[in-house]
């Protein structure tokens, strides 16, 4: 899957949309140094959808925080269009595992909050908010408060809030991890549709190997202690986005074996990976 031709053509030639070069990150916990990330190299192209899978504690969230610019104390280099990331910006949005909606604002106001610093007029903001609530199918719930929404609806609002600024990069940190299996499957399709519609470049962190294969153009597999990239697997065109397709299952099993789970070829393996992660 690639973004709109005009945009991807513009980005070609000079540099990747997002370039992570030899990034390492240490934390000191109780006087001890913890290597959260070690020599991470990753280049993401415009319009690409990259999935990152790996067990808990292998530095996935840390990597997203660095890309967001929330933490600039690291070794190496993170560049967007060749410019080093110095601070958070509206060109990079995130959806967290918990929806993180503000309970005192209604749905509409929660989404509009992301546009505070956009410099747009009130009318333009209102229109963007309406469009994005429509995109996630929640037009009817504009005036509802977060406490009145189900988990899946709240996460859709969070997705709308992340996209309303028309970011170049959408970072997703286990966005569907807290949802029940059915809602998760439904939202995976919606996420795919929405990201395609907006032409956003997406980086998805997930525990769910199926989800990684289903949504990703490439799958980055990380190993812990220290957090590092074990391999990057392309999701070739031969893998149709059909979960029961033999190619799909083959790729899923390959990812599982990289994660240290034996090739079972059935759902028990995926479930095991989900639990151990």
């Amino acid at each position, binding site marked *: 899957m690639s973004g709109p031709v005009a945009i991807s053509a513009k980005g070609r030639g000079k540099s990747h949309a997002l370039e992570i070069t030899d990034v390492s990150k240490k934390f000191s916990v109780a006087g001890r140094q913890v290597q959260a990330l070690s020599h991470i190299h990753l280049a993401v192209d415009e319009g690409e959808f990259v999935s990152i899978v790996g067990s808990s504690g292998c530095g996935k969230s840390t990597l997203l925080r660095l890309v*967001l610019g*929330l933490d600039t104390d690291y070794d190496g280099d993170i560049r967007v269009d060749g410019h080093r990331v110095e*601070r*958070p*910006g*509206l060109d990079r*949005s*995130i959806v*967290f595992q*918990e929806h*993180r909606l*503000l*309970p*005192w*604002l209604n749905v509409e106001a929660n989404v509009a*909050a*992301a546009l*505070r*610093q956009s410099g747009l007029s009130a009318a333009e903001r209102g229109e963007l908010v309406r469009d994005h609530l429509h995109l996630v199918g929640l037009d009817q719930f504009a005036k509802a*408060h977060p*406490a*009145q929404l*189900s988990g899946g609806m709240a996460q859709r609002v969070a997705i709308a809030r992340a996209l309303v600024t028309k970011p170049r990069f959408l970072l997703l940190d286990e966005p569907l991890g807290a949802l029940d299996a059915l809602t998760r499957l439904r939202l995976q399709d919606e996420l795919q549709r929405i990201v395609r519609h907006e032409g956003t470049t997406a980086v998805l962190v997930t525990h769910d190997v199926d989800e990684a294969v289903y949504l990703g153009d490439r799958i980055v597999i990380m190993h812990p202690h220290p957090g590092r990239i074990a391999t990057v697997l392309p999701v070739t065109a031969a893998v149709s986005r059909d979960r029961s397709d033999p190619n799909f299952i083959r790729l899923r099993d390959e990812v599982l074996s990289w994660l240290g789970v034996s090739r079972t070829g059935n759902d028990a393996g995926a479930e095991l990976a989900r639990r151990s992660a």
Partner: protein
Amino acid sequence: MSLITIAGGERLSRSASIAPPPFRLIGRHLRPLAVPIALLAIWELLAHAGVADPRFLPSLEAVVARGVAEFSRSGLGVNLLASLKRDLIGFVCGSVAGIGLGLAIGFSRLIERLLGPVLLVHRQIALFAWVPLISMWFGGGEAGKVVFIALAAFQPTLINTWQGVSGIPRSYRELADVLTFGWFDFARIIAIPGALPQIFTGLHSALIYAWTATVGAELLLNIAPGIGGRMNEGQQLFHMDLLLLCVLLLGGVGVIFNVIAGAVEHRFLRWRIR
């Protein structure tokens, strides 16, 4: 749907299906009044049974008669208004200062480090210990009284606002960073609404403290129009009915303040209830 809605729905359906007999409904509404009514009855009994000296414990109807007389001419009504005005000015000044400083301390680590210890010491000093100092600095007149009332309102609003803002979850601060909020947006969209329940708790206490301080100031500082002034008068002229009337009035105003504060809180914090 949320748990709260379910719980609310359940309560509704229960009261609809098993409707309690009407006298039980009335009983439930009158329950909070049971003890006050009993106390009034005991008062009446004591006053009429000849147990208590009527000069020290006048009967309820004597107090009511006094009240009717006072409020039909411009007596106690004017004094009540004078007290309420003083109370309101002090409450507003003290709360505005308390909320302002509480926000500043909550936002800024530097201000918190500078002022935190001082304020914690300040908290240890009993409110009425300030009376002599205030009367020296601001005099025992109107200024001194208002300063004292403001101080009473200042303490709870400050502490609660401060705690409310510093209790904002880290995840919301991170959200503010991701959305590139400046301090103004952070305050307006995240910190103040997030701290609002605590700020209201502070304001609620401040309302009660300020009313207590109003009477305290009127009793302890120079005599001036006000409920406290009339209580001084009642004490000196041995008008027990006036004294008791004033006490009832003070309690009544306190109850009304409580109801108003509860209603305002309910109105502004509806998002929590839904």
